[in-house]
């Protein structure tokens, strides 16, 4: 046990006490924060209001366009596009939302130009001159037959790549024309809203005891989150595990090690040490991510964006963590096994794709589980090592499987880890004794059986 701990300690500090670790650990959250705040910052850099001249005979469209592009209207549109829960907002939230809408939708200063006997060409020349004088940013020509099927609206802008303004004007124009058409057909705007009203589709789920609870579609999200976390940590740390194994073979230290401790102790210690260092980093990231998310949620709340979180119990968090650990260790042992079979890390890189494939299989197994968590498939998938670290938490989230199944699933993963470490340790020892050439799979199998 003391030897095992010595190995754990060395492997842990070897990774943690390096500049690279410090830099990646503390700069990555800063980087992530910067990336997530970047769009917000960029969009909040707002130019002046876009000055648009609308060339139109009678001003009908101008009126409607002006209305549609007003901040009040934009807020209303935003509300319509989001869930119903935004309905009840207090005044200050409403005000904030308006500001947000202005930020993201752009603001406009419209001006009506009536041809007044001038030809289109004359007007265009005038407007072009004004644009050249920087007195105007864009102009829109509304055709006389604006509600005809093939009516052509022309928008000339100094800056045609300002997609935000372009989209806002196009949408405003569309709405304006539609309203005009509706008015002609004698249908009021209110009537239209009524017709377009979506049905209220409320999902409740019934659990085993027969009681009804609010339904959720977070099962796949949870599984995806777990698979993603596993994927990230494994891609980051799998190669570290592999490198640690390969280093000792390359530098020939392995021979001293094997003359001092049991291969299983050495391999397990290495795995635990590297995994703990990985967990240290992931923990730091998780906490900073949580901090950012909380901050984001508070911000979103103050902006009036609804917060809807699934109901998560502390027990579920424990399960989530346990299965994450099981998955992390299990996949890392695959890397240890690969490392024990190859002579250089580069060589090992070729095998890495297999772990990703297995992980993906676990992720996709979640779809049938979410659809029927009690099927035989779901039972098998949530008990099979390699797949279960992803599928079992999803199943736990959707319905509560019997405790023995959860424990069995964890136990099988632990057994798989031990079995793989044992195999890796043997392959490692024999691989060291005949270094210099890459082993074939049948050879490795022979080592594991006979050494």
């Amino acid at each position, binding site marked *: 046990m*003391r*030897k095992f701990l*010595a*190995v754990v*300690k*060395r492997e842990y500090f*070897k990774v943690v006490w390096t500049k690279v670790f410090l830099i990646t650990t503390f700069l990555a959250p800063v980087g992530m924060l910067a990336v997530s705040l970047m769009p917000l910052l960029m969009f909040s850099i707002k130019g002046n209001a876009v000055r648009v001249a609308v060339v139109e005979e009678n001003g009908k469209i101008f009126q409607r366009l002006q209305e549609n592009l007003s901040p009040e209207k934009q807020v209303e549109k935003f509300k319509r596009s989001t869930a119903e829960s935004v309905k009840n907002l207090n005044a200050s939230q409403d005000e904030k939302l308006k500001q947000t809408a202005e930020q993201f939708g752009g603001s406009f200063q419209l001006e009506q130009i009536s041809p007044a006997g001038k030809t289109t060409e004359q007007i265009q020349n005038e407007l072009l001159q004004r644009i050249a004088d920087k007195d105007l940013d864009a102009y829109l020509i509304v055709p006389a037959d604006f509600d005809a099927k093939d009516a052509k609206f022309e928008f000339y802008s100094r800056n045609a790549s300002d997609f935000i303004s372009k989209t806002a004007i196009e949408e405003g124009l569309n709405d304006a024309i539609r309203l005009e058409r509706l008015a002609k057909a004698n249908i009021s705007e209110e009537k239209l809203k009524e017709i377009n009203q979506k049905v209220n589709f409320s999902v409740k789920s019934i659990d085993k005891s027969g009681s009804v609870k609010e339904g959720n579609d977070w099962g796949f999200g949870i599984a995806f989150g777990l698979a993603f976390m596993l994927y990230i940590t494994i891609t980051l740390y799998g190669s570290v595990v592999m490198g640690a194994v390969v*280093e*000792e073979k390359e*530098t*020939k*230290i*392995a*021979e*001293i*090690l*094997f*003359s*001092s*401790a*049991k291969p299983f102790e050495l391999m397990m210690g290495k795995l635990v040490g590297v995994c703990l260092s990985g967990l240290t980093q992931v923990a730091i990231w998780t906490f900073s991510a949580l901090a950012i998310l909380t901050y984001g949620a508070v911000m979103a709340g103050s902006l009036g964006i609804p917060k809807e979180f699934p109901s998560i119990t502390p027990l579920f968090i424990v399960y989530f963590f346990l299965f994450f650990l099981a998955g992390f260790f299990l996949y890392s042992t695959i890397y240890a096994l690969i490392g024990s079979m190859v002579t250089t890390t580069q060589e090992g890189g070729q095998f890495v794709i297999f772990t990703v494939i297995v992980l993906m299989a676990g992720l996709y197994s979640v779809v049938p589980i979410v659809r029927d968590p009690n099927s035989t498939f779901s039972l098998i998938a949530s008990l099979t090592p390699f797949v279960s670290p992803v599928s079992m938490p999803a199943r736990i989230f959707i319905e509560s499987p019997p405790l023995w199944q959860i424990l069995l699933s964890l136990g099988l993963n632990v057994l798989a880890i031990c079995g793989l470490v044992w195999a890796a340790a043997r392959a490692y*020892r024999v691989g060291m*004794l*005949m270094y210099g050439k890459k082993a074939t799979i049948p050879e490795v199998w022979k080592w594991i059986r006979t*050494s």
Partner: protein
Amino acid sequence: MSEQPITLRVENVTKRYGDFTAVDNISFEVKAGRIFGFLGPNGAGKTTTIRMIVSITAPDEGKIELFGQKMSSELQDKIGYLPEERGLYKKMKIQEQLRYFAALKDVPQKEADKRIDFWLDRMGLSEWKLKKANDLSKGMSQKIQFIAAVLHEPDLIILDEPFSGLDPVNVETLLEVIAELKKKGKTIIFSTHLMETAERLCDDIILINKSRKVLGGKLREVKESFGKNLIALRCSGGEKVLEDKSLVEKVTEHADEKELVLAPNADTQILLKKLIENGAVISKFEQIEPSLNDIFIEQVKEKNA
């Protein structure tokens, strides 16, 4: 010498890798407090045998006993091993590495630190304590590895080619240290293909070639068993006697003397007498032992032929 306890007993040990027999039915004993030379050409099976002794691999047949117990990983802490293929963690500080190796041999860190200081001082490497292995020269890292092999004060020390790559000054230091360890009652197995060093150091030897034991025993006795038929001769005259095939099998001319191989069953005294009778003026007539090197080459050639 039966009063000395036996540290290591290797009995009819065989190890195969697939169709290749790396070690074929080898037996020997290593007595406590002695230096045992494990000799043989490259590829003879020395390293494979040592790996079985330190329990890195297990023999397919036969048994290995250390201090009267069957060898197992629990007994590993009683052995110090300097492998032929040496390595250190490149980016780890010397002190850290030695601490780690000591911990793997179950030495508490406080005790380990004391011994590390002692040994670095003894090897003249104190100022390298906080340097990384990358900064060390080959000879230095070899001395560090030697320290790693003795830090846990093992009773049996196995050194596989310990002098290869060392300059004469360091060879001398290491020889002194080995002598000190022997004085403290440690048993040392020392594998080499350099016969001169073996001759200088070893009490007992075993010579293996092509996976098999060729000969073994006390160095003195081994040499004596080969040493009765060689004569160094410096003389003038008496050439006729040297041509007598019933007396002399072979004459090798050196710069100012001759080396004679006696014919089987020939007697040195009769040869000397005949030389004098034939008027030879003798300035040197010495019965010499063959060097270990000669024995080695002769035995290996013979077996390979």
